[in-house]
């Protein structure tokens, strides 16, 4: 499991919550879990007294400012944890440090490719113009590909066309 800031001393409940979160997927890219995406920053479970339920505090970072998937993901988290018996759940958004594709897990990148979306190449700080990147076609592996638009079906992806197999495909932009 890889997420920017790994919680060092996790208790059993926190481990259980991470496992539950692993099952929640991005509604727009259903092969990716929210852990693969790297949007969960930390999970904390506090237990102050035996009379009160455990307090669950989850910090997350949205991918893009206006990502429409955020509300859906929040609802999924609340439902999943409620079903598992947690009653006191707080979801807190943190904007800093800004989300980056560097936080995406390697297994997530592999899943993206199998799904037909080219995974982000390089580190976000390198900030290379899309036109200067060679993106391999996720269908046939050819690098004879051409950028069609910097923006695709969602803000996080760019649209490409493969000149070998002639199929269009999405590239998950380095961000």
């Amino acid at each position, binding site marked *: 499991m890889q997420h920017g800031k790994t919680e060092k001393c996790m208790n059993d409940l926190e481990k259980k919550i991470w496992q539950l979160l692993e099952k929640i997927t991005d509604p727009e890219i259903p092969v990716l879990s929210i852990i693969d995406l790297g949007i969960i920053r930390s999970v904390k479970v506090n237990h102050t007294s035996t009379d009160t339920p455990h307090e669950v505090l989850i910090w997350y970072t949205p991918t*893009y*400012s*206006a*990502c*429409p998937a955020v509300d859906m993901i929040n609802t999924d988290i609340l439902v999943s944890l409620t079903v598992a018996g947690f009653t006191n759940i707080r979801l807190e958004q*943190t*904007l*800093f*440090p*800004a*989300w*980056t594709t560097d936080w995406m897990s390697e297994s997530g990148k592999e899943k993206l490719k199998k799904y037909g979306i080219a995974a982000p190449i390089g580190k*976000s700080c390198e*900030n290379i*113009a899309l036109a200067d990147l060679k993106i391999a076609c996720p269908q046939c592996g050819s690098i004879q590909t051409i950028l*069609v*638009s*910097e*923006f*695709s*079906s*969602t*803000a996080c992806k760019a*649209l490409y066309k493969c000149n070998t197999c002639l199929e269009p495909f999405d590239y998950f*932009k380095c*961000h």
Partner: protein
Amino acid sequence: MMTTQEIENPLIKFLLHLGDNALIMGHRNSEWCGHGPILEQDIALTNIALDQIGQARNFYQYAAKLILESSGEQLTEDSLAYLRDSWDFKNCLLVELPNGHWGRTVLKQLIVSAYQFCVYQELEKNADKQLAAIASKSLKEITYHFRWSSEWVIRLGDGTSESTQKMKDALDAIWPYTNEWTNFSDYELNILGDSHLTIRENFEEKLGAVLSEAGLTAPTIAFSQDGGKKGNHTEHLGYILAEMQFLQRAYPNAAW
């Protein structure tokens, strides 16, 4: 009807200014949805609109929190967007101007993106952690907007004789609204301090470089339009608000 006109806190005023720029620009961009020259570019501009509205939400949410803390008044991102009248908006006039043709639209976008890039770049270092966080997040998105609009302005400015002429005319029409961005108000200066000089310099350089590559020359004009930052707007803003706010005004608290 609510108003934020009595607010004196410079940070809140600045947040509203930044949010208003983004919201009105996003709304104008959204008018192209379904009308773009080709599907890919229609989608590109709609994505930019979405980014702008997302950024506006972040600024409004933070402004609402500070208003609650300072005056106890319960506002939300929605009431700030939907229940203020035009004199309460602090956006620069350029964002409310009609889009016009595609060339004029991408030129407007270029100026706004160049400015947003330069101001967020400085705000990223601001001592106010939440303002810095929003700026840092927005900056990543603006980088794409700037590149996209630069490419279009260069393609059309340095294109056919017809496209070049249209871009020249668009630049003449829009240019009087460019100075307002770096004609800083008291509340901006209060938050930006000396960094306003860097912003002005970077903005002129960033914009100038693209115009020059596009073969366009900024007109020399003796006057510039302003007033937006203080709430004095063109008639266009009223029409935008009439459309954007109609539902919340006619059916208060409607939700879906």
